[in-house]
Structure formats: structure tokens, C-alpha cells
């Protein structure tokens, strides 16, 4: 298993960043994400918003791995994601795992958005991925390849969040202006 992790601080309030996180897709930075559905959404007994989503991506393992495993090229790879939005602790945690090819490759990813301690105007994103490739003699190199890809995707994901966050701020400003003038 390969474990990869990173941290990043956004210069925006947590409330704005989590709204952006829920509206992250579609975006130009992650064109592989083609479809997204909500399978379940409820507020639990602790008042937390629980969501389960399925994400369809055009991502596929490298062609040499597909050939070696005797697979046919897949039109869509599915990822299952469960998130918990906790207003009391001001955290949003999203955990995802791939659903397609789960017996060969397993990528468990966790993203947590929280307020930077002592700074209400900044939001901390902690991201971790655990990558396991099973039943293959070269699993280590494939795990490293996946980690490199996740690392590059993480940067693009943050850009997408920042773009959506700017959009939400503009929306909020226009609502504010509208309210002021009415």
C-alpha cells in the first residue's frame, strides 16, 4: 500500500469553501469527471448532513495494465463517495473509494475541510489517499503511478474549488447589493 497526503490553506471562509466543494463539478480542471449522482442524503441525529454520491469518470488504468489484466477498455469508472458536513465542528469530510476494478486496485481518498485554527478567514484542506494494487507482480510501480496522478489531480481540484469559491462570493455580493438597494 502507498499512502499519500497533503495539506493546503484556502484564503476564504469555511462556509464559502464548503459551498464550493458541493458545487465543485463540473469544472474545467477535472474534465475526466463526466457524471455525478446523489444516492442518499439525510440529516443525522447529530444534525450533520450525510450525503452519498456516485461519481462517473472517464479515467482508466494505463493501457499496459489493462492489457496485462486482460480487461477491455472501460467507458466509465465509478467512484463511491460519502460525506459528512458537521456545522458544530465546522468540518466537511469526504471519503471516496473506487467501485470499478475494486478487486485489482483500491484507492481510498479522504478530504477534510476545516477552519484554520485561530483564523476564521482561512480554510484548511487535508487530503490523504491510500492506494493498493492487488494480484500484480509490479503493484508497487502502479501504486506510485497512481500516487503521482492523485498528486497532480489534487492541485487541479484546489483550483476548481478556488474558482467556485470566487463565483459564490460574487453571488453573495450581488444578493447583498440587491438587498441594500431594495
Amino acid at each position, binding site marked *: 500500500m502507498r*499512502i499519500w497526503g*497533503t*495539506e493546503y490553506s484556502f484564503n476564504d471562509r469555511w462556509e464559502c469553501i464548503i459551498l464550493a466543494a458541493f458545487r465543485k463539478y463540473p469544472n474545467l480542471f477535472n474534465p475526466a469527471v463526466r457524471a455525478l*449522482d446523489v444516492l442518499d442524503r439525510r440529516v443525522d441525529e447529530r444534525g450533520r448532513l450525510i450525503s452519498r454520491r456516485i461519481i462517473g469518470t472517464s479515467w482508466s488504468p494505463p493501457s499496459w495494465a489493462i492489457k496485462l489484466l486482460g480487461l477491455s477498455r472501460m467507458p466509465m469508472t*465509478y467512484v463511491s463517495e460519502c460525506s459528512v458536513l458537521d456545522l458544530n465542528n465546522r468540518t466537511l469530510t469526504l471519503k471516496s473509494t473506487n467501485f470499478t476494478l475494486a478487486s485489482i486496485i483500491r484507492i481510498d481518498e479522504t478530504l477534510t475541510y476545516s477552519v484554520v485554527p485561530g483564523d476564521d478567514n482561512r480554510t484548511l484542506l487535508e487530503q490523504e489517499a*491510500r492506494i493498493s494494487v492487488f494480484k500484480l507482480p509490479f503493484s508497487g510501480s502502479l501504486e506510485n503511478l497512481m500516487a503521482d496522478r492523485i498528486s497532480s489531480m489534487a492541485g487541479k481540484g484546489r483550483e476548481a474549488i478556488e474558482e467556485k469559491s470566487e463565483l459564490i462570493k460574487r453571488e453573495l455580493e450581488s444578493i447583498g447589493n440587491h438587498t441594500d438597494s431594495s
Partner: protein
Amino acid sequence: MDSISDKCTELKQAYDSCFNKWLQEKFLQGDRDHDGACGELFSKYQVCLREAIKEVGLNLDDLMDDHLGTDQEKTEDPKDKEHRSDKEDKK
């Protein structure tokens, strides 16, 4: 964002609009009534989606399986932390 099935996309986007508005204007202000605000749109969307999941060949029970440990937090192996890499903190 599109649904995994084209035929559900319209219902999905109608629900999404309701949800995004509810999240921003209600939930973040402390009103937790998701079903009261968007339940009807969610139900219509789910009828379409459940059918689409079958057509795509996915198993809904597997998708709903709580393998992600949301309710029961997984205990973290402290040894794993040592393997962390790529620490970055851009401010």
C-alpha cells in the same frame, strides 16, 4: 453536472438547484429540514436514478454499503503516518 443517465439529468439538475439554495440559505443558518425543502424533487430524481443504476449494471446494495466507515470511524494505524509524503502548505 450530468447524471450517469441522460434521462435523469433534468431531474437531477432540478434537485441540485434546490439543494444548493437550501444548503446556502437554510442549512448553514441552522435549518436542518432537507426533506421539507427538497424532498419532493429528490424522490422524483431517485425513482429515475434507481432504474438507471440497474441499467448501467451497478449494484445499488454495494454502492450503499458503508465501506467508507462514516458512522463508525476507522481507527488509524499510527505507523501509516510515517509513510506520508508530499507535505505541502501553500499560504
